[in-house]
């Protein structure tokens, strides 16, 4: 019956169209901004239910021919404005249309899938969009992920340290995996780009341990944030299901700017500024009394002598200030040229960012060149290419964890009293540090920790209209691209250093070369057609992904003086060689139906297979379904002026997270002993049955609009359940093997996301836009499947994490033992925040001024502050020798809670309020410009801004956002003497020609 209806409706429509196709009339009009009355250039005028359209000219005028002689509906829209429908008929006069600024962004088109996009007002998911202006309009932010901070409800974005060049973790809607980092998939113009935290080798040379303590940057740092047009964030499986296997932690879709036909626009921007530490803690002063308490008797005379000498010459050195409190110069230069004609559009940009760090000899330089070109081969075949070459040169210095080598400023100076002078001698040598194994001044001056990335990202799209009728269109979309990334890393501690001189082979150099090559390609057939009053969008497609890595690290010890070439080393070692290769393929089908913007429904399914899985040929299915009801668009609604929109929505979807490479292998490792090669049985047994981690999410919510959509409200609740979570089943180590990956665990994330936004004031001379967001996530281990265990951090005495059913794996436990708890230790805290809030404000006033600020508040969420553990050991914590409880034992030796000196003392509330961005801009009036430069300069914008302007917290560290282990799902809140977060202050000038 339904089929019959469909066929007859199609036939009917066909007849109608054909029958009247000979008649035509013309409508003219102008489009202006409702608030300012200025003409809107480039607004789109479309005849509804047809493929006919026009664009407004420089005066906002348009003229459009309409087939037939019936009434028609014109849909008038412009980017950033609320679109309007206007009824016209053959006798209509020239029409005047005023468009209101889209304070609630309901009109923006949101990318929701591999080949689909939808108007925000029709969206059935809470997809967050961040526009170029929101991203970098307030201030200059080094990296794209850092620029997203506080702009997405449901995203827990965190800087791992303040080192220049990035290192940001993004967790969307809690965590979806226990073993990986739970970082979202990132797609740049259709290319699956590498956002891994690559090894730098610092932790190897400094002795800190595994590469997760390198404090490396994630490679999204390579992307110039100013090239970005918009970012869409699909936060969970219900929105991201069509991305299948890699979408468990969400998907971030980045679209770069493209050219538009018209005059060629040249824009030159220069930001210049400085950075200084956001927060320092101060170091403790010493007294003879403290020396007598702190040092053993035999050592006291020497220490007292040093102390008195310092007193005599008044040379006390605040090492924190000495190392961290340096003013760093920041510069960012950008040139963009864009334009085009009917057939070809282009956007070309160059960016040179050069930022010093607040620690001497650290810094970040990024050179990026981009060319985005679109060309119409014919009216129906369009080619788009986006090419981006990037060179990123980062020096991140020596901070964080270390072992024995002393190659960490903060770790080292935790032990150095302020009366001992470690600064460089006049003869160029460095004093021996008698309090630790190294002189950190020498490490800072002479050591190298560099990463040099050369990267090329190429994307392409080819759209072909295969068939077009007046109300249906069949398109083929081919798309894909490649991401080639080469990272050359160098960590060098020269032979002259104190610790190196104490080694059998002084001088240590570790060279790394990591290459990754990702390619992806997809082909989609899209058919847009009408079924009666229902607009249908059908898709079928396939996807192919390939990921290759090739890493080689070489180490040389015992260096010829001043040399870093490996061949100048006494002991030359292949530190690591690693290859990986992953192939994935998928097919998908999706059907969207839109009933007059009143009811919008989508169903879809994707099937994926991957060589990472136990069975590489098995397809796993990921279905989705969603529906949204735009109640205000129904006839019963009545007036829309006060309560202008109400949209209940519900969505369900499933996705997966990939298995780690190698989980199926049981290898024989290579080992060398006494000149012979040995094969050793691995301590991990591969699991050839391993399944991908899967997640299902049910999301529902209500979006509402008030006062002609000047004010909007979005409320979302989600339940995300994961299954088959991979964790290592620890085998009895007495069997000689330690673990095998298992698919047992299940996690539950439940949360709320609220956003209230809109335009509070709309006067010709004053406009105030605001967005207030609240979100929280509750994580629970619904099923563990293997025995309760503790893991992460530095063991139970220093705070570790509990993996037990009914608990969140972010639960921090530690000594003293408490057998009544699962896992056997005292529960001290939880890393997960209770809730986050952020508030974005934008004011335009006196016509030419714009002021914006962004603040974020995080409530609770505990850190494990081991920086304090170190400074307490070294007697340098500010206030160490105070004695709060008056029992004669100073605070530094007796930290509450009682019983003293257990793990609980390092677990600290990391609540904070950050004023993340502040910016003030002035656009020079057109008249003034014309007087000064004639017509040669189109626009000049001046501004001043701050990034990480202020921090308010009781947390006793440089920044409550910190992770010595980089980005990982759990244990990403351990504080070990990180690089202090900088406050960055900028002055801006942009000139458009």
């Amino acid at each position, binding site marked *: 019956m339904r089929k019959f209806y469909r066929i007859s409706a199609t036939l009917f429509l066909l007849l109608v169209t054909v029958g009247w196709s000979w008649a035509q009339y013309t409508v003219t009009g102008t489009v202006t901004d409702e608030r300012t009355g200025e003409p809107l250039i480039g607004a789109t005028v479309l005849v509804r239910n047809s493929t006919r359209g026009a664009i407004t000219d420089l005066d906002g005028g348009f003229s459009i021919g309409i087939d037939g002689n019936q009434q028609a509906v014109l849909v008038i829209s412009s980017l950033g404005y609320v679109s309007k429908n206007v009824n016209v008929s053959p006798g209509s006069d020239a029409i005047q249309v005023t468009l209101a600024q889209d304070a609630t962004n309901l009109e923006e088109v949101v990318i929701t899938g591999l080949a689909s996009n939808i108007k925000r007002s029709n969206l059935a998911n809470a997809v967050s969009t961040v526009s170029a202006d929101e991203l970098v309009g307030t201030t200059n932010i080094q990296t794209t992920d850092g620029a997203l901070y506080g702009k997405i409800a449901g995203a827990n974005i965190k800087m791992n340290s303040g080192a220049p060049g990035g290192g940001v973790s993004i967790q969307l809607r809690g965590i979806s995996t226990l073993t990986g980092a739970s970082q979202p998939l990132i797609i740049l113009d259709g290319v699956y780009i590498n956002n891994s935290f690559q090894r730098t080798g610092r932790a190897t040379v400094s002795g800190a341990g595994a590469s997760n303590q390198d404090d490396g940057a994630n490679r999204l740092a390579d992307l110039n944030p100013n090239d970005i047009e918009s970012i869409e964030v699909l936060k969970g499986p219900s929105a991201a299901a069509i991305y299948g296997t890699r979408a468990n932690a969400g998907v971030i879709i980045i679209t770069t700017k493209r050219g538009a036909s018209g005059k060629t626009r040249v824009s030159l921007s220069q930001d210049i500024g400085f950075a200084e530490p956001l927060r320092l803690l101060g170091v403790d002063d010493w007294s003879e009394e403290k020396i007598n308490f702190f040092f053993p008797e035999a050592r006291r005379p020497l220490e007292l002598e040093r102390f008195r000498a310092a007193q005599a010459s008044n040379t006390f050195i605040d090492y924190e200030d000495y190392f961290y409190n340096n003013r760093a110069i920041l510069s960012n230069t950008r040139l963009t040229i864009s334009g085009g004609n009917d057939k070809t559009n282009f956007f070309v940009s160059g960016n040179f960012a050069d930022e010093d760090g607040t620690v001497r000899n650290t810094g970040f330089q990024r050179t990026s060149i981009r060319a985005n070109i679109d060309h119409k081969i014919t009216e129906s075949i369009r080619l788009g290419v986006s090419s981006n070459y990037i060179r990123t040169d980062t020096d991140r210095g020596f901070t964080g964890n270390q072992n024995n080598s002393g190659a960490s400023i903060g770790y080292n100076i935790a032990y150095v009293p302020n009366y001992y002078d470690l600064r460089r001698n006049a003869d160029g040598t460095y004093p021996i540090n008698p309090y630790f194994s190294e002189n950190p001044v020498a490490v800072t001056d002479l050591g190298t920790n560099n990463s040099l990335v050369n990267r090329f990202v190429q994307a392409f799209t080819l759209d072909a209209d295969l068939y077009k009728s007046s109300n249906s269109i069949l398109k083929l979309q081919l798309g894909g691209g490649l991401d080639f990334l080469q990272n050359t890393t160098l960590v060098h501690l020269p032979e002259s250093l104190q610790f190196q001189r*104490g080694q059998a082979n002084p001088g240590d150099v570790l060279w790394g070369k990591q290459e990754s090559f990702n390619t992806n390609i997809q082909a989609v057939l899209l058919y847009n057609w009408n079924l009666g009053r229902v607009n249908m969008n059908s898709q079928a497609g396939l996807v192919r992904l390939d990921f290759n890595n090739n890493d080689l690290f070489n180490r040389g010890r015992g260096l010829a003086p001043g040399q870093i070439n490996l061949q100048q080393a006494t002991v030359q070692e292949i530190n690591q060689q690693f290859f990986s290769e992953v192939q994935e393929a998928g097919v998908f089908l999706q059907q969207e139906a839109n009933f007059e913007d009143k009811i919008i429904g989508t169903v879809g399914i994707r099937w994926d297979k991957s060589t990472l899985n136990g069975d590489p040929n098995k397809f796993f299915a990921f279905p989705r379904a969603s529906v949204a009801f735009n109640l205000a668009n129904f006839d019963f609604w009545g007036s829309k002026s006060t309560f202008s929109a109400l949209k209940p929505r519900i969505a369900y979807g499933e996705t997966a997270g990939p298995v780690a490479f190698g989980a199926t292998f049981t290898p*024989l490792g290579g080992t060398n002993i006494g000149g012979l090669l040995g094969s*050793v*049985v691995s301590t991990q047994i591969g699991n050839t049955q391993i399944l991908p981690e899967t997640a299902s999410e049910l999301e529902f919510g209500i979006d509402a609009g008030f006062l002609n959509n000047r004010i909007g409200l979005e409320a979302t609740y989600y339940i995300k359940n994961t299954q088959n979570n991979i964790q290592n089943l620890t*085998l009895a180590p*007495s069997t000689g093997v330690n673990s095998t990956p298992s698919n047992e665990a299940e996690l539950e994330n439940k949360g709320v996301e609220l956003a209230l936004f809109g335009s509070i004031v709309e006067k010709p001379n004053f406009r105030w836009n605001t967005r207030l967001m609240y979100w929280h996530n509750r994580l629970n281990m619904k099923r563990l499947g*293997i025995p309760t265990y503790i893991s992460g951090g530095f063991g139970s005495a220093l705070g570790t994490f509990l993996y037990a059913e009914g608990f969140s794996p972010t639960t921090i436990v530690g000594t003293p033992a408490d057998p009544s708890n699962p896992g056997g230790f005292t529960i001290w805290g939880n890393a997960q925040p209770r809730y986050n809030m952020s508030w974005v404000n934008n004011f335009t006033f006196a016509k030419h001024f714009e002021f914006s600020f962004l603040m974020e508040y995080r409530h609770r969420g505990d850190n494990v502050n081991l920086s304090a553990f170190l400074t307490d050991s070294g007697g340098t914590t500010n206030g160490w020798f105070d004695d709060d409880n008056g029992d004669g034992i100073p605070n530094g030796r007796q930290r509450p809670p009682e019983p003293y000196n257990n793990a609980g003392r390092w677990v600290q509330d990391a609540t904070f309020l950050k004023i993340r961005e502040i910016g003030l801009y002035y656009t020079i009036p057109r008249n003034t410009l014309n007087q000064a430069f004639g017509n040669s300069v189109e626009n000049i914008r001046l501004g001043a801004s701050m990034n990480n302007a202020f921090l308010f917290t009781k947390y006793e560290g440089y920044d409550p956002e910190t992770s010595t282990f980089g980005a990982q799902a759990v244990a990403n809140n351990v504080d070990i003497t990180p690089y202090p977060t900088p406050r960055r202050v900028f002055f801006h000038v942009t000139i458009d020609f």
Partner: protein
Amino acid sequence: MKKIKKYLSIAVLAAISLFACNPLQLDEIDDPNNPSVASVSNNASREQIQFLLTGLESRHRGYVTNISQAWNTFGREIWYLNGSDPRFQTDWLGQNGRTPDNAYFGFGVTGGGSWAFPYQAIKQADVLIEASLSASTLSDADRRAVAGFGKTIKGFQFMIPANWVYQNGIRVDVADPLNPGGFVSYEDALDFIKTVLDDGDQDLTAAGAGDFPFRLTRGFDGFNTNAALKQVNRAITARLNAYRKDWQGVLTALDASFMDLSGNLNAGPAHPYGAAPDIFNPLFYVRDAVVTTMIVVHPSMLEDATPNDQRVANKFYERTAPPVTVSTDAGTLVGTHQDNRWASNTASIPFIRNEELILLKAEAHANLGQTTDAVAAINIIRNAAGIGNYTGATSQDALIDEILYQRRYSLWAEPWGHRWIDARRYDKLNEIPTSFDGGAIFPQFPHPQAELNWDSYIGN
């Protein structure tokens, strides 16, 4: 319309050529970095057996770092001062009431070098022996030689977890990773190890005279014949029998071992070390290095030393640089003397020496009441150390005390924790001094958490 057709056909052709190689077809991806364990399980080549055997030598030295640092700290032969992690002091010395738990610092949930590593060596030996059985290029004699070597190492390695957890007992049935046997008592474990070593001894006998048929590292220089490996096997058995208090068994084993009363006291098989791709001797520290991490001589070793003891002069180096000083919340420890045994960072570390065998002979005789023989053996050691013949009391208690004292200096800081084990054997843990650090002496360790987890996982 013609144009559209043309472009349509171009698009279709492009699509076909693009996907000529089926994009849904995935290649089979093998481990690009390593061979698989399965590759040796069926008819391994002689080279593969050689690689597994060398792998066993590598696994065999896995325990050295952890035991040298930790057990020798427990027995106060050394302090492992570590400026970067105070827990090497506070936790290992049992300061401020700290006692070992199932995931203690330095051992983790798997027991690390004191538990997981020795069991990995045992696993390696099992895989080696298993692979040799199906390797058609090996003769029967080859197979017996491989089995004899593997079991000798296994016997040695089993003693490590046994001594670490002592009365808590260990697993000895560990061949099937998914179905390990239960824990057996310390005494039963030692008896089991005896059977492993005896089997190995018989295998080496059956392997016949001549060279060991595979290549051993220089650590086995002088011991790379089947007969010499038998002597190593018996030396290890002598140590085991002392733990079993089978004193006659000690003497019997010593007779078949490489013990040489007039020979070099340092003779014995060793773990080799070297520059990359090998690993450096983990106990080597540069003299007078101005660092804050170092193994230092425990003050009681200096305080209790006999004047002119050559062992003190040879093994301990008094720093001319400032002492190594490390502060923790339990106070500050100062190390004035370094370990002087290693000429370089490529020096081999012996795992059983002639000197120990002679001391075992003395101990066995003393326990059997054979005073003269005991004193004779003691005197070999004393004279080698330059402190003259024994002149003290010859009661059994006095002789045992003397032997334990000589063992402290002769076997100081060897990768075995001799003093900790010896004091426990004779119920003298309370004689280990804690006055220098205010800590406590641990009698033994609990089972690692991962073992408990496994039992709870399978419902035991």
